[in-house]
């Protein structure tokens, strides 16, 4: 009993500190919402950015096709994609079509996708075309 009485004040302070923890955790989560979040799977990233022109079938038939003067690359084309090295695909995605002597209609995605995502995208494209370089 006497031990309990002796510890009462520090224990009370400790409980008060614990009560503040949820508020601190909530504040931390609000300020750093992306911490601990994994990027969505790369095929979903393709659907957000690439599919508007390259299409859900990945063969260059996106919803924007009717308005385009140049047909987007068919990512299922084993021959054409197989002839394109990884570093050229990376450069086309990051710096746009003009950087690899292709159409200006392929924009630069370097400000939207990280180098890591672009590297993953190149790997993903290899699974789409069933080809490698």
């Amino acid at each position, binding site marked *: 009993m006497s031990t309990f009485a002796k510890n009462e004040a520090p224990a009370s302070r400790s409980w008060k500190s614990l009560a503040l923890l949820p508020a601190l955790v909530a504040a931390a989560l*609000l300020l750093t919402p992306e911490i601990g979040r994994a990027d969505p799977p790369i095929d979903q990233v393709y659907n*957000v950015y690439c599919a508007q022109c390259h299409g859900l*079938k990945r063969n260059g038939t996106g*919803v924007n*096709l009717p308005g385009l003067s140049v047909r987007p690359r068919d990512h299922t084309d084993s021959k054409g994609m197989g002839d394109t090295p990884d570093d050229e695909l990376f450069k086309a995605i990051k710096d*746009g079509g003009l950087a690899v002597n292709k159409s*200006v209609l392929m924009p630069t995605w370097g400000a939207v996708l990280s180098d890591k995502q672009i590297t993953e995208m190149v790997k993903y494209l290899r699974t789409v075309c069933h080809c490698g370089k």
Partner: protein
Amino acid sequence: MKYKLPLATAVLTVALLSGAHAADKLDASCASCHALTKPTDTSLDRLMSRKGPDLWYAGSKFNADWLVAWLQDPKPIRPAGYPYFKTTMEGSDHDVVDPSKITPHPKLAKAAAESAAAALMALKAPDLVPSGTFKGDTAGARMGALSFTKLRGCITCHQGENGQGGFSGPELTNAGARLQPDFIAAYTIDPQHFDPHIWMPTLNLKDQDIQRITAYLSVQGRGDKK
């Protein structure tokens, strides 16, 4: 010392709620699809799950007259729906819009539209859309048309003059009636600054291009179009 944490919490709360006052004047249903205050979650997950474009900077984006008219007769702004990656499906020749996945925007009566437009116009973001980003020189509009349709490829996703162009981005056939010129310029410079992860690329355009494209777009759909 013992007041530091409550003080920090209060400061955080005030910061998070700043801008909320104007948003409070809007019908609560608006917030079910649109962010009316700056979102703290800037992840791609959020972008992929949201139902409508963010409106927390609406007062620095839209023209009030257009808002009042549109809220009474809300025709789709994005031909492929919003977001396009949830409203399109495979078609025989190319992906097409799935009309069953497009939810019509609620139509407001005149008084409600005027009230909502006034509340939206109070949602200003001067740091995001600095006044004078478009320098006002409309002489470059013809070159801007060329940039839009050919040289910079904007037409890939956006419909410009005469409704020619792509479907995944908002149509810009009436950009001048709908949008403030400073917004057109600031957003084109860096779309991700407004909307992290948004599917409009940053093209790293030179200021001359930005000015010309803005000059072209800012007269689209206006009665005084030259």
